[in-house]
């Protein structure tokens, strides 16, 4: 019973980490650098959602506004910075993304203060299903996360632009030779990345709080999940997020709460030692 409750907690956290990891792994695969601004984009999504929520009170409007605002921010980042640095080493891009992250955090801090803000959703008592307490809000958030993942995978695997993205990820030179316009693919990638981080940010904000540092603090677990899942593997990133979340929570009866984060990283290391390309990674995809 307690274990089931722990698994449930793990899933709730794992979905947020998974979404952030998915957005990172896509950038890894297609633009070929670790996007350290992902955490702060997520924070931005949380603030955008909060703004819409306070203005309208509707969850749907909150989600849509956050997605649009963050996708636009993401696109602006691409045109203003990453496109100009295309072809540079991934270290230059990484450093640029760290800088953008700092800027986003600073602007949010100056505009909205460094205090903690919350979505003032009326708190409700839980449903009790088979002895397990499930909060209605959690359920809604989990369903929205699954819907977002379904939409993202739909775009990646069932649409033409998704096919082009995967082609660029597989072999960008070959893709260019085949007539795929890389700029369009990149624009689509950054829009998708923005949308994914926005949903993760709103989820995190609704489940917990909105503050300028929340995204930065989730960056490391998201990074870990992206590597764990196999760099560049979308499904791997989500699965790894869930595994990290659940392991972390399930370990608490044995190691206590202080060391649960370490346990999830022990699992990460063990897997990488036995399977260096990660859970779902292809050996040749790792460069």
């Amino acid at each position, binding site marked *: 019973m307690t274990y089931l409750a722990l698994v449930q907690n793990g899933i709730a956290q794992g979905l947020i980490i998974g979404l952030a990891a998915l957005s990172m792994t896509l950038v890894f695969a297609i633009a070929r650098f670790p996007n350290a601004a992902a955490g702060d984009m997520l924070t931005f999504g949380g603030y955008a959602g909060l703004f819409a929520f306070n203005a309208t009170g509707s969850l749907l409007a909150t989600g849509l506004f956050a997605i649009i605002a963050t996708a636009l921010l993401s696109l602006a980042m691409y045109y203003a910075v990453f496109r100009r640095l295309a072809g*540079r080493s991934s270290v230059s891009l990484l450093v640029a993304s760290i800088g953008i992250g700092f800027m986003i955090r600073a602007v949010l801090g100056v505009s909205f203060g460094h205090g903690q803000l919350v979505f*003032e959703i009326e*708190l409700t008592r839980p449903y009790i299903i088979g002895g397990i307490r499930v909060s209605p809000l959690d359920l809604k958030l989990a369903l929205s996360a699954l819907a977002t993942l379904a939409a993202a995978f739909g775009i990646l695997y069932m649409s033409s632009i998704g096919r082009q993205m995967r082609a660029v990820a597989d072999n960008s030179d070959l893709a260019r030779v085949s007539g795929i316009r890389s700029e369009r693919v990149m624009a689509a990638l950054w829009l998708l990345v923005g949308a994914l981080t926005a949903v993760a940010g709103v989820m995190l904000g609704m489940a917990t709080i909105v503050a300028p540092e929340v995204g930065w603090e989730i960056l490391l677990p998201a990074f870990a999940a992206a590597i764990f899942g196999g760099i560049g593997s979308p499904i791997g990133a989500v699965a790894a997020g869930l595994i990290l979340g659940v392991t972390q929570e399930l370990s608490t009866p044995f190691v206590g709460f202080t060391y649960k984060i370490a346990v999830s990283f022990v699992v990460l290391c063990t897997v990488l030692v036995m399977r260096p390309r990660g859970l779902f990674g292809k050996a040749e995809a790792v460069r």
Partner: protein
Amino acid sequence: MRGNRRDVLRSLGAGVAFMAMPAVVRAQGADVIRVGALNPITGSGSPYGSGMQKMILAAAEAVNAAGGAGERKIEIIAEDSQTSPQAAVLAAKKLIEINKVSAILGTWSSGVSLAVAPFAENADVLLMHTSGAPALSTMKVNGKGLFFRFHANNERSGAAFAELCKRRKFTRPATMAFNNASGIGNVDGFRKAWEAGGGKVVESVIYEPNQPSYRSELQKILAANPDVIVTGSYLADTMIILREWFQTGQPVAWAIPGWAVTPELIRAIGPTAAEGIMSVDAISNEDDPAFKTFDAIYQKAMGTSGRSNVYAAECWDMVNCLALAIEAAGGPVNADMLKAKIREVANPPGQQVASFAEGKAALKKGKINYEGASSALDFDATGDVTPTFGAWSVESGKLVMKYKFQA
């Protein structure tokens, strides 16, 4: 990977050059006393940090307007501790080595104060802080006696929590503590006092900062069926914990440090969930003239009542205390002299004074006893103040003061 290494080296070089630039190198002058303000402008302490910094600046301005301390102006150099020990140590080193400050004022969290302490001690710089960790007043940390605590020691706050639980006739307390010196100090102080009274703590958890959720921690505590949960927590984590607790549906009372139970908290979790939450904290010296002066200035600077930020009142007192000590010392000062003079101007006996200007005048006639905005400001042998505690309860979305007591 063309040009990769060169690019990296070039950017690293630029980065190093950038970091090495001192923010402002100030001219040395014999007629100023430089004092560092190291407050939590960002991070967990951010609800209080800006107010603390503004009150240090305002108090210094008042001292300078009254002719300065010992005929010298006080110059404040402000840094952000980010409520992070690493950032605070960098800032403290800069204050000590580059700005050559004689005192560092207003470190807030215990983690920060403990990290800055050895640097201050080695450089013979006074440290006036608002942290709770008992360790800060031990011989091991404060061997030279250069540190002054303007806020309640956690052992005392813990005892105050035990007193509150006793008055409310709780029998099955559990504790939840943020994993730092202050959080743990608070619940340890509670446990000590509670067990000394013959009680038992049914369950306890220490949790990590900056987690998106504390549900598993909460489940462990709630499984022991406590009738009250005593926390050593900050605002952000308390918000998350209380929201998650309410959604579990299990009734329990909460006793939380005052710094975490703010109007923002009540707004964030809603009046229904907040109803009945108890908080305990050291309270400002609200009937004292010093508090009235402070309150008016705080109101002007921050737009809210000075009652909402006891740390700002403590920072106000730090500057006044330090300035009076310098005034009392007369000529050139050093840390050893100041630490004795601080007790001399703050502790009884002596003529009670409520501001620097008043104290400066009274010093010409004899010994003074500064009565602060934050407390009567009497330091014991270990450098701790002995504050009065207040207990509040949330009623219909408002914090209502229930009683005051000494612990």
